């Protein structure tokens, strides 16, 4: 039975059937062949997969990010980031990374971040002589910082499917997110200086640092508000997300830069993204119920434990599996399907769930920029019209440094757990 299901999965995936529907189709095979599995109970599992209050944080944080990009906050944060980095070599490239980092607190997904920066920053970078494929690769790589620094959709979903505290995951991911930003900035410094791209600008800036900071403050303040609020128990992550939506909507009212059409498109995009994610989540919730009949999680767990029983090696093994899966499959799907499956394995070796979660989510995001398939890469390349091959030529150094950060996080749990447990 199981080999048949595995083959069907690969064939349907290659055929381009959406992953949520693949899981439904596979369940259909089970329902037809196994009289013990009732189709109606399966349908009920599917719907109840959506019936959870913490999941509301997903659309709410996506909406926050969408609204932020049209509110005028983004432009102000960009002015601030450009001011801070203008004396560096490769100033605009650094702006690109810093902007992702600063906006991360209002943006929960890498895709939105990449789309916005590919539209706004990449044309400016081209004017200053950066090669187009480098700008696109940098934009995509730095966009991966956004979902690590809270709030992050990946962290919320992981916390949900593995029953790990979302508040702790948020807090724990701050240092890894900043570490990622620091490593990318250092690397970008070396690359731009070697090629002599965008030399340091000695001109006097037109606005003062204080005024620029004031413009960026709303974006920097929000993640602090969310984390402190959630960790102090003032509100749940979903409630924090609703507050974040109102917070951002307030700035739309104040700045008056967005029109109704943009607001409609922001809502529509939130709807489409949420629905796509939740289809996979609900279908995998229903499908995993089927899988437990086959004792699949136990079988996989036992197989992995025969490979290694050393915690760090196990995390490295899992990171490798996610990396390989991420070449072809969207990270969100990996989080939802594999996240809970590997959990008992790592906890049996004494790995902290928050540590595991942060390594897992970090690696799952990387799938967004690794060719041949990656949603962040597709988004950015579609906007800047760079081919996947040219993109790959420019992005590999960033993938290597990303893997370096992952290795550091695996070896030193401290980076992920310190802020999570205070």
């Amino acid at each position, binding site marked *: 039975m199981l080999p048949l299901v595995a083959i069907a999965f690969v064939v*349907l*995936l*290659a*055929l*381009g*059937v*959406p*992953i*949520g*529907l693949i899981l*439904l*189709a596979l369940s*259909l095979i089970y329902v037809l062949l196994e009289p013990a599995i009732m*189709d*109606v109970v*399966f*349908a*009920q599992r*599917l*719907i109840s997969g*959506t*019936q*959870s*209050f913490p*999941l*509301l944080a997903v*659309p*709410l944080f996506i*909406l926050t990010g969408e609204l932020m990009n049209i509110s005028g906050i983004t432009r102000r944060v960009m002015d601030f980031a450009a001011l801070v980095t203008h004396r560096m070599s490769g100033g605009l490239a650094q702006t690109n990374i810093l902007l992702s980092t600063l906006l991360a607190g209002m943006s929960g997904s890498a895709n939105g971040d990449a789309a916005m920066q590919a539209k706004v920053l990449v044309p400016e970078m081209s004017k200053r002589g950066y090669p187009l494929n480098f700008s696109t690769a940098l934009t995509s790589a730095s966009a991966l910082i956004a979902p690590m620094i809270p709030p992050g959709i990946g962290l919320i979903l992981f916390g949900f499917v593995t029953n790990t505290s979302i508040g702790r995951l948020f807090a724990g991911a701050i240092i890894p997110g900043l570490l990622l930003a620091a490593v990318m900035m250092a690397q970008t410094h070396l690359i731009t200086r070697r090629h002599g791209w965008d030399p340091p600008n000695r001109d006097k800036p037109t606005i003062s640092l204080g005024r620029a900071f004031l413009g960026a403050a709303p974006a920097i303040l929000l993640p602090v508000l969310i984390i402190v609020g959630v960790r102090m128990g003032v*509100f749940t992550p*979903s*409630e924090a*997300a*609703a*507050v974040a*939506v109102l917070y951002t909507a307030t700035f739309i009212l104040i700045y008056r830069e967005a029109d109704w059409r943009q607001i*409609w498109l922001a*809502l*529509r*995009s*939130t*709807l*489409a*993204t*949420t*629905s*796509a*994610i*939740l*289809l*996979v989540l*609900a279908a995998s919730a229903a499908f995993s119920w089927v899988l437990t009949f086959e004792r699949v999680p136990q079988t996989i767990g036992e197989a992995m434990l025969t490979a290694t029983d050393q915690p760090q090696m196990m995390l490295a093994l899992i990171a490798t599996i996610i990396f390989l899966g991420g070449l*072809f*499959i*969207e990270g*969100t*799907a990996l989080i939802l399907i594999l996240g809970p499956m590997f959990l008992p394995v790592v906890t049996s070796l004494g790995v902290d769930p928050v540590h595991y979660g942060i390594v897992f989510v970090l690696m799952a995001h990387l799938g967004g920029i690794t060719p*041949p*398939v990656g*949603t962040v890469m597709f988004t950015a390349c579609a906007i800047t019209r760079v081919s996947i091959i040219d993109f790959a030529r420019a992005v590999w150094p960033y993938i290597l440094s990303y893997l370096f950060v992952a290795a550091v996080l695996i070896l030193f749990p401290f980076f992920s757990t310190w802020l999570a447990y205070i």
Partner: protein
Amino acid sequence: MGSQPTRALRVMQDLELVIDRVLTTFAVAILVVMVALVAIAVAARYLFNSPLVYSYDLSTLLFAWTVFLGLYTAERDNTHISLDNLVQMAPAKLRRLLLIVRQVLLIAVATYAAWMGLLLIQRTGMQIPSMRISVRWLYASMPVGFGALALIYLLRLPRLIAIREN
């Protein structure tokens, strides 16, 4: 080829657009109400000290409707998570065949899911206690959402078959 098939294809495209308008408007309206409800519930708890007991159940009920109605919008906006560039690499003849096979499969799976949802509605009649409404209000989101998804897949099938003629 005559203009008859072309016109039929155009009618289907128009129909797809009209359904999109209706469903997306509904789903977005529900989304907005859901956001407002969660925000009001926080305010009610802290500012007025009177928690809304039904807010959890109502907001998750609304959530199910946004998710399932949004399936159609997600298909239109191409946000469903899939690996579709392998098929695009296939030679033209094979690609056309694969796309048609895929489309038929999609129609089958979405229809099956809608059908399961209908069965579920028929066989349950419980109430959601906090709101005193039938749980069918929740379950109905599934057949409606998957029904619409099956419909858009169906509306797009003739175009895939007709591609060679254009």
